[in-house]
């Protein structure tokens, strides 16, 4: 059996084992390193042990932000109440809100891309500008955004707009263009108007691919959101990570990083499943 055999067909069990090997190796290596460092220095905070991580997770999820006033009856609150007052939940809500704003702004971008692809005058009017806009490094205009829009929510949302929407517009534009012309002509011969063809023929056909494009751009979207939060924010997951960096709070930073990854994975999974469920005709190339 050769590992470099193109026609190899690993069994289901082999696939399952192999797919977890790197996770197991990474986790083992981490705890081995943590153990060794703690033997040398019991106060080490760079690579926290399992106990330190557990304490960090408990602190992050059950204790409010240190800056906030401690509620006197904290101990009397139920676990759910304490969790909802905890900094992990509050940070998650704050970041999710901004994330959803960003996501909502992608839908006008999809419509713009669609119109550019379908209506030639729309296309020529916007295309050159969007192509130029797409080349602007969003993070390079961050200071301008803070000056123009202040350090509130708007500047962070604008960062997402500049960073992600041109890609979505251009993706949708290209997808609209890829619909065979026979389909457009067919639509007209069946009595459809221009808008019917745009929305009931083209958009419906490209929609699963557009959703895929949005799904693949979730990470850049989060990246720009995190950049904004790290620089100018008073709450949010990235704000907390940046804050704890100053205190070497690795026992909280690591769970936060994993939590963000898990959230993103869940959003991605939900979108994939929804796409499959809503568009049973769609087969990815």
């Amino acid at each position: 059996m050769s590992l470099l055999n193109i026609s190899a067909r690993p069994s289901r069990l082999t696939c399952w084992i192999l797919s977890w090997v790197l996770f197991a190796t990474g986790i083992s290596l981490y705890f081995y390193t943590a153990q060794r460092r703690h033997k040398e220095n019991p106060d080490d905070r760079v690579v926290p042990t399992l106990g330190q991580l557990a304490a960090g997770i408990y602190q992050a999820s059950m204790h409010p932000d240190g800056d906030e006033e401690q509620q006197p009856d904290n101990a009397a609150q139920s676990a759910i109440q304490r969790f909802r007052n905890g900094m992990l939940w509050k940070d998650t809500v704050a970041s999710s809100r901004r994330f959803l704003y960003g996501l909502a702004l992608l839908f006008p971008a999809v419509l713009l891309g669609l119109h550019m692809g379908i209506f030639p005058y729309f296309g020529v009017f916007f295309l050159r500008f969007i192509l130029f806009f797409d080349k602007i490094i969003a993070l390079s205009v961050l200071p301008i955004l803070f000056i123009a829009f202040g350090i509130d929510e708007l500047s962070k949302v604008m960062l997402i707009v500049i960073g992600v929407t041109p890609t979505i517009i251009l993706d949708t534009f290209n997808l609209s263009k890829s619909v065979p012309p026979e389909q457009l002509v067919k639509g007209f011969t069946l009595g459809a108007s221009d808008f019917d063809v745009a929305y009931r023929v083209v958009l419906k056909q490209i929609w699963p691919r557009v959703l895929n494009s949005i799904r693949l751009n979730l990470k850049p979207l989060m990246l720009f959101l995190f950049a904004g939060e790290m620089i100018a924010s008073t709450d949010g997951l990235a704000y907390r990570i940046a804050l704890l960096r100053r205190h070497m709070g690795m026992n909280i930073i690591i769970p936060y990083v994993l939590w963000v990854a898990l959230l993103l994975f869940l959003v991605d999974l939900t979108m994939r499943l929804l796409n499959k469920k809503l568009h049973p005709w769609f087969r990815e190339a």
Partner: protein
Amino acid sequence: MVPGSLTEEGAVALLDSKTRDEPLMRLEDIHVSYPVAGGPPKKVLNGIDLTFERGQFVSVVGRTGCGKSTLLRLVLGAEMPTEGRVIVGGREVLRPDRDRGYVPQKYSLFPDKTVLGNITFGLEVEEFSLLTSLTPRFYRRRREFRAEALRQLRHMGLQDCDAGKYPDQLSGGMQQRVAIAQALVMKPKVLLMDEAFSALDPGTRAAMQRLIREVWKETKTTVLFVTHNIDEAVRLGTRVIVLAKECATGAEGSRVALDVAVPDADERLSKARFAEEIAGVVRRVEEATGHLRGEEEDIVP
């Protein structure tokens, strides 16, 4: 009202009677050229004049690149002639519309819609806009559209259980059956078929040829059928048009090399006489295509 002037209904009736007497379609001195980078434009069609009567089944045959699909696209309104004009039902064709049904070789169905959705699409968009398709009336009417679509589906030899399938779950022949149903449900003035059966295997192709001939006989819809297969053109058409370049004059662009009526099997001819007449038409069509410049043979007899 001024004495002797027409009422609105009267004007419409007069227009109707006039257009009824007129031929259904006219192609008037059609020239088509395509721009070529760094060179003179390439002429594809050179002075085509054709008239089509209602209820004809017209096959257009010719070599690859002779402009037969261009001719069909002109009638469809998907392309504009460089010179000349196309008139259908008394109106100049400026863009595709519901008067002309279309069955292309590929991409004939909307992949995101089921068979039923594909057939009802035209009925739905014709009556309901994007906004009104959200009203309860739309859902009530949709039931009627579906019943009509199912009737068409059965007429095309498909079963009710196929109604919920998506195009990629159907064979090529079934897809084309649905495409024909989709076009016919709109009751178009002309059905335009562009190499519609070319991608099918011989058995399915023969079955589809029988089907379209039966449908044409029943509905008497005018059909313009583009093919590169002489046998198919003669078998289906009541009239065969051969497009070809003139090698004698050396002029660029194709012209009508032959325009011939095909005898109908129903005509009172003996079997032997009918076979003889058909063979004569095939021979003439082959000769017309043979008068072409020495290009590689792509006409299938």
